């Protein structure tokens, strides 16, 4: 069986080359832990804010105290006026300002005008903004309820009662109840690590072969004489390594960091197998551009940032133009990321993700054909070269 012999030889080569081992073993093991640890805090707590209290009444102090007591916000200081408060933003001692106007208590007591609290957020971070907005809104809502209850007793008319008790409203964050950042970002990052580390590993491996043979990515070895055997032998070697990595991510990383896990193991394997094949074949095709071992780092590393974005987990898919959506279908990571997020975070079934599942199968098939074509051409060149040399 030539195919298995090639697979065995490739595996031996991989583990003998520390440069490749870094990418296909150490990186998939360590990077998930590093990122999960980095975002393990999930949410921002105690965002520092400064307060401008122009009202200086019991009610305004109550409002401020409640903000300070909330887990997401911390009042670091009181400022005399807005200009003074801005200084805190300039020195990054605070990321927001809460301004309570002079008429605050009067408006509440008179009940003829709404009291308006100003929440000013510095916009360098959406998460700080969100924490500020949510906390201030929550405190306002809470106080509104109490103010209404205290006023309720005095009114008897039906109108007033209807007014004070309208339909209320509640929001729920599904699939990620605490709106955690790790629960959102780590699943896509895991899938991207699989694709990117494969590209780097296979790229370096093929660059190395080229350096040894003088430009052809098939080793000078009689074993390597059939494109189908070469491709599947190499693919099998990487597939075996990455099957372990994939199981590790699903079974170890996810549990270790309490990330969402709604998928069953078999559902996971159901789309993971085509994903791995697609990634491997895609990496071999892309490695056509790698002439030196180290070229792969230069060429592939910086793709990570745009690819995660292009997948549509950050900027939502319905907002993307068709052209860019089609462009994103070139990369296995797009389908892999969606398949993982949907099955594992949202609990979708293989049927629910059939579009992405089929997408992966098609990608695996197309890139396999391309890789076979590439190897056929390379084999042809290898034979010509050998003939010339002899």
């Amino acid at each position, binding site marked *: 069986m030539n195919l298995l012999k090639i697979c065995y030889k490739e595996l031996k080569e991989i583990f003998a080359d520390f440069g490749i081992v870094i990418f296909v073993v150490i990186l998939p093991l360590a990077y998930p832990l590093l990122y999960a640890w980095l975002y393990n805090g999930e949410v921002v707590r105690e965002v520092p804010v400064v307060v401008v209290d122009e009202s200086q009444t019991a009610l305004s102090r109550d409002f401020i105290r409640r903000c300070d007591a909330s887990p997401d916000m911390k009042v670091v200081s009181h400022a005399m006026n807005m200009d003074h408060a801005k200084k805190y933003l300039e020195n990054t001692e605070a990321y927001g300002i809460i301004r309570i106007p002079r008429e605050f208590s009067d408006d509440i007591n008179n009940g003829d005008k709404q009291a308006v609290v100003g929440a000013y957020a510095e916009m360098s971070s959406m998460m700080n903004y969100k924490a500020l907005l949510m906390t201030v809104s929550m405190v306002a809502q809470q106080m509104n309820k109490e103010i209404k209850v205290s006023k309720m007793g005095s009114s008897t008319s039906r109108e007033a009662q209807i007014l004070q008790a309208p339909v209320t409203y509640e929001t729920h964050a599904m699939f990620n109840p605490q709106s955690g950042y790790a629960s959102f970002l780590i699943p896509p990052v895991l899938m991207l690590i699989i694709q990117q580390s494969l590209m780097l590993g296979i790229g370096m491996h093929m660059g190395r072969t080229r350096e040894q043979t003088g430009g052809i990515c098939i080793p000078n070895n009689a074993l390597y004489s059939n494109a189908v055997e070469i491709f599947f032998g190499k693919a099998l070697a990487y597939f075996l390594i990455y099957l372990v990595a994939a199981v590790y991510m699903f079974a170890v990383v996810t549990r270790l960091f309490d990330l969402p896990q709604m998928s069953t193991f078999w559902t996971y394997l159901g789309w993971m197998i085509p994903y791995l094949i697609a990634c491997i074949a895609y990496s071999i095709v892309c490695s056509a551009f790698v002439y030196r071992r180290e070229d792969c780092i230069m060429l592939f*590393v910086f793709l990570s940032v745009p690819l995660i974005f292009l997948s549509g987990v950050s900027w*939502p898919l319905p907002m993307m133009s068709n052209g860019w959506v089609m462009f994103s279908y070139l990369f296995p990571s797009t389908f892999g990321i969606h398949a993982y997020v949907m099955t594992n975070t949202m609990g979708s079934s293989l049927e629910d993700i059939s579009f992405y599942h089929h997408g992966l199968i098609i990608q695996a098939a197309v890139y396999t054909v391309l890789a076979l074509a590439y190897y056929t051409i390379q084999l042809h060149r290898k034979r010509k070269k050998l003939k010339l040399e002899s």
Partner: protein
Amino acid sequence: METLKLAVQRVKDLFLREVEMGRQRPLYLFCMLIAPLFFCYMFCSLMTEGAPNDLPAALVDEDNTQVSRTIVRTLDAMQETNIAVKYQSFSEAKKSMQRGEVYAIFYIPEGTTKGALTQRQPKIYCYTNEAYFLSGSFLLKDLKLIGELSGLAITRETMQAKGYTMDQIMPVIQPISVETHALNNPSLNYSIYLTNMLVPGIILLVVFLATTYSIGLEWKRKSHKEWYEKAGNSVMVALFGKLLPQALVFMLVFVAMDVYLYKIQHFVLNCSMWRIILIQFLSVLASQGFAASIFGILAGQMRMAMSVASLLGVLSVSLSGFTFPVMAMPKLMQAVAWCLPLRHYFLLYVSQVLNGFPLMCSWKSIAILLTIAALPLLFVRVYRYAFENVDYKA
């Protein structure tokens, strides 16, 4: 004086040598020049709309009365919502969410009308899909408004029929209201928030890679001795002559990005164009200094240096803190972030470009960038050793 003149002449020679080498490697120039600009265009083009406003939502009205239909009508009419489908039951709507068709579900349970009429404050619910963090966050902002308005839907109709105005109704229902001001990005334009950092993140990552790659290639091609000789056996002259032309190429990319973002796309720019260019120049120099130091620390091991540079370069994007704030990260990572050029580029960008604060507020970041740029001075001896004694190892 004479030695200075000679040094300048040598830098010039090396500069030309580097330009010639760059010309022979189109792929390498592609990574430096074309790719970052392509992604800059891509991010802007993807996020043309600024904020994701029209995300599809599903609606489940189990109550199905005159009153609940009033609520539905209110939700439907709002600009912030896009009710794409209506379902009979919540589980059908949830299935639709799991297929990725809708991003939110509005749910009016049975008995809402009855509850409203008997003063029991019934609830209507909204479920957002927080597996997609960003859409969830944006929906939340809109939901606050929607919540206020839909809660009012019933009362408003009856009260307005009785001749009350909104100004009279609101203070009773909601004595305190919150007015949010998103400073310098009032429309919450997501592209301003992301593109401004993603593109420099990619550029400075490529600086890391290009620096270690181009220095390492000298050893790989066994031309390091020639390079060293041409520099008059001076490590600093050698590095200077090699990295300066690259710095110019990267500045070309940065200026093209600036023109595109701040002049064509009209992103917020609250300082002069010169100041942002200066910040970017400093960041490029610091990134080159950082990467050249990595190469020095590893005493000329090209592959190892590139692996470390790519690891830290990719990590920089996260550690710069523009998505997840640094203060919420583990202490050790906060310290690492402090040493990375991209983190200081972010701090400078926020303070100067976004908020237009005085330059003095950012002196710390400027000082750190300058220090990092000068870091290779510490490794002159290691470089000298590498030039004289180290050979390329695969």
